[in-house]
């Protein structure tokens, strides 16, 4: 069903948890789908220095959450905003078709966190 890469991120997810003094947070998903994600980022000089997630969801939801935090770290906000859900799926070696829509929300969560950060800072670069 899942690729080895998905199973790797599912069984040993990276960056699980919360950032105490996060600069932005994104929350996506809904209970009907059964996938809900919360992602927090730390931003310094327009660069994402840390990212953590908590996810309620299936194997795909957890794996995409994990890999997107890895992909985001060290990227500028603009670079991070360019990460698509499709790119996340590709980085995992693909996802089952029926998981592409609902469980592949991690990039959305990241984008929401960045938007939240921009809102808080009024578009500035400084930390929260």
């Amino acid at each position, binding site marked *: 069903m*899942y690729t080895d890469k998905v*199973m790797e991120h*599912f*069984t040993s*997810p990276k960056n*699980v948890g919360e950032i105490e003094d*996060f600069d*932005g*947070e*994104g*929350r*996506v*998903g*809904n*209970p*009907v*789908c*059964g*996938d*809900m*994600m*919360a992602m927090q980022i730390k931003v310094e000089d327009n660069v994402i220095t840390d990212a953590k*997630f*908590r*996810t*309620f*969801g*299936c*194997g795909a*939801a*957890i794996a995409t959450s994990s890999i997107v935090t890895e992909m985001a770290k060290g990227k500028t906000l603009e670079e991070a905003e360019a990460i698509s859900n499709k790119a996340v799926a590709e980085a995992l070696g693909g996802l089952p078709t*029926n*998981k592409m829509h*609902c*469980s592949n929300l991690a990039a*959305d969560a990241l984008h*929401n*966190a960045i*938007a*939240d950060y921009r*809102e*808080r800072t009024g578009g500035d670069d400084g930390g929260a």
Partner: protein
Amino acid sequence: MKRVYLDHSATTPVHPRVALAAMNFMMNEYGNASSVHTQGQRAGQAVEHAREQVAGMIGANPREIIFTSGATEADNLALRGIAEMHRERGDHIITTAVEHHAILHACDALEKDGFRITRLAVDGEGRVDPDDVAEAIEPGTILISVMLANNEVGTLQPVEEIVEIAREHDVWVHTDAVQVAGQLPVDVDALGVDLASFSAHKMYGPKGVGCLYIRRGTRIRAQMFGGHHERWLRAGTENVPGIVGFGEACALADEELAYRRSHLTALRDHLIEGLEARIPDVMLNGHRTERLPGNVNVCIPGVEGEAMLLHLDMKGISASSGSACTSGSLEASHVLLAMGIKHEIAHGSLRLTLGRENTREEIDYLLEILPPIVENLRAMSAWKPGEDTTFSSGGGN
């Protein structure tokens, strides 16, 4: 790694006696049961012997058994067979919200073809109220289809009472008895149903074979046309190895039924107790006692089902969340939702269904493995039971 199989409601291992019988009819007694020659006649006799074994298990006359490719076909044949045969008499069918998809989707298709379907609600334990059935009956009602036991939560339905009501109104009753056969006695006369579906692979028989019981005198329209097989009600060369295997599986069930019932009940109760003792906030789904001996179904709030299954699988445990048929889908179980369980809780269901070969050690292994998995996933979850689940896009806090 020796695996622990706790998914018997999805399918069962084929019993060696059954497999050997099937093998014999594949390689040695391979005749076509309709052929005139000895090889054909022997196959034909084996089919009739199996028909007696199946009929024997449910107290039916062998002539009332129509072999099919499984219960999905039997369910569809029952519903559409009655509907198309008796359309002038009425266009209304009553069923419940917790039926197997073979019933529910067959009903959807009939609805598209102009029939009217009433899908009765169930209570918090998954039981339909016979009074609701009585109220739903109208002059145009031709059929009521209520399963004998639910495949997800194991709740037994009051089919006998429903039959009594139906008789007063001259309405046929079908029951999907798939999950009960091989676990509890089924007697079609005691139940009083007119039609009943069975599947071999849920009771240590082969996949791809089942039957529809049709009470003598009940007329239905065939859904597959061709040769004169199965009294013209189901064409197609008889699946002799499958049918012979199904017969053996029924004979085996008869022999072992008392043992299975007590063995499964003991394991089930031990498992439920263990889960309730070790997993905080676990909720048992379905009726606590009026349930299948082999069925345990719980919701574990704060955990998503598939994630649990994957972790269990890595520890060698086969289980399911919802039914096997819906596992390809992302929707929460229609059964749990119909029982009034919220989506986010329903997504965290775990179904453990026990079989004749399971041991107390296997259950204890599950009870040892599961709690840390739950703890781990709960720690990772974006919400905790009781918390708000509004995850509208954007908007940090």
